[in-house]
């Protein structure tokens, strides 16, 4: 079986979209170094999925097959884990993925207005949709764990505290 191809979903006669495996060369070595830190390969599943998402921006179906193969798991099992955790994207998202905390502590400090400002200024229009230029996706997220610095926003890996609707246009200038 070729790496990354789940035989249940492909037939020989169908053209197979070219899939470039993630775990070759340096990433492969990084993964194998992780094997030393855990008594089972299965325990490397979350770190392996993070490596896929860092490389591809999301977790494509073929990557699920590849991860399953390198860790000795089944694709169905890996899919079950991927879908449990909200930070793994199972579909492509904008270049900048914006998560705005709207749980109660931030909510009472005006977080929903911050969400509206992001939707307006990114051109996304609605939650979960990607802007027409492909740059932004905005979602509401449950508690980011920075309640005293309302409203916290995560833009990719940038954790930004104290965001107000007025700050949004300026903030977005930094994400071209």
């Amino acid at each position, binding site marked *: 079986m070729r790496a990354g191809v789940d035989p249940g979903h492909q037939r020989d006669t169908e053209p197979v979209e070219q899939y470039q495996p993630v775990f070759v060369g340096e990433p492969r070595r990084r993964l194998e170094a992780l094997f030393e*830190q*855990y*008594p*089972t390969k*299965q*325990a*490397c*599943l*979350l*770190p392996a*999925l*993070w490596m896929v998402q860092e490389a591809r921006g999301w977790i494509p179906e073929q990557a699920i097959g590849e991860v399953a193969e390198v*860790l000795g*798991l089944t694709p169905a099992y890996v899919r*079950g*884990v991927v879908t*449990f*955790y*909200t*930070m*793994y994207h199972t579909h492509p998202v904008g270049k900048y993925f914006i*998560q705005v905390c*709207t*749980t*109660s*502590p931030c*909510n*009472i*400090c005006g977080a929903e207005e911050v969400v509206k400002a992001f939707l307006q200024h990114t051109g996304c229009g609605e939650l979960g949709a990607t802007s027409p230029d492909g740059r932004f996706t905005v979602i509401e*997220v*449950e*508690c*980011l*764990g*920075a*309640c*005293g*610095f*309302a409203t916290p926003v*995560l833009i990719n*890996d*940038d*954790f930004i*505290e*104290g965001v107000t609707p007025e700050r949004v246009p300026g903030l977005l200038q930094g994400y071209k």
Partner: protein
Amino acid sequence: MGYPHPPHPKEMPLLSQHFGDTGARSYEGWVKRGGYEGLRKALGMTPEQVIEEVKTSGLRGRGGAGFPTGLKWSFMPKNSGKPHYLCCNADESEPGTFKDREILRWTPHQLLEGCAIAAYAIGAERCYIYIRGEFTTEHKILVEAVAEAYRHGVLGGNVLGSGRRIDVVVHRGAGAYICGEETALINSIEGKRGNPRIKPPFPAQAGLFGMPTTVNNVETLAAVPHIILRGGAWYQALSRGNPKSTGTKLFSVCGHVQKPGNYEVVMGTPMRDLIFEMCGGMRPGRTLKAVIPGGSSVPILTAEEAEDCLLDYEGIAAKGSMLGSGGMIVMDDSTDLVYQIMRLARFYAHESCAQCTQCREGTAWTTRILERILAGQGKPEDLDLLLDLADNMTGKTICVLSDSCAAPVVSGIKKFRAEFEAYLSKRTRPAAVAV
């Protein structure tokens, strides 16, 4: 970003004494501030002596449950012949709580020192620090601190020349509140969905990879070096006369106070001092309405209850709530409590792992009923229905997520019933078309 604030005279900064001091973040900076002396001292003691010292201190788990730490450590088997594991719970996700994040970002070596001492005490050679995926900055800081600790021989095969091995692995979560529950956390490290496990067996018997395991919160572990260095009796004496609640506690205060942030006080400090003096009270023209004192999973307190409450495990329990994680959500009279309770229910519905029926269905139905009440489509019997649902969600599931959803609903209806009834009396559409 308005933090850290200069310590208030009523604070007692112990764990937080170097918050805001970027120099404390590095290995050298930490050692310069007396760091790793606690570990050095611990390595000169027997593991049993370390556990006894922590028992003497009265330290209780700071993640929410408040279980005595020394006792928890003593449950680990002796000479089991199996690998033992320590897990540090840095999956801080309880709404209202943001204290562990500050420990991680300002004093990562304070945590690593606590981890090393705890690992030594319980006979673990390996510690996994499970940090929530959203803490991107803290993850980087922690990974760097671990690398530094290895370079300086604080971690690895010969900890401070003792011949002991202690390894620390930073494991990053991926967005799941439930992984803060200790057995869900263990499953998540094992590469599984974060479903809590049925107990027993408890982690001390069969935890991570089936081996004896202790799971401790960040703040709990960060307190340990101070206890070892200055003695359990010294720590135990830090209280306002209640021997069951000792030491200092970080309270994360958020919401409608003038100066939100983390405040470290001696157990037993009056809640009103924290809210009205240290945090500067309400915004001008506003009055206190309610406080959720221990993270969103505990019953809501009215302003009257809050103003007469002592900040320790027993003091908050006496008011019918819990100290929990020490994450205090303060709400003034501008707050629509029905709406905020719905937001909390929605949080729990979103975060339910969906393993237990009472939780999967209960959190979702609670949210939908609250949403229809807010939309003016509530039925007269909805409040009783919510209470009945809550009863079915309490004490009946594998973990307490379901109970946590019920707590604000039950206490909210009990203490602020008029606000719910106001929505019901404004009903705009016949109930028949409601959800």
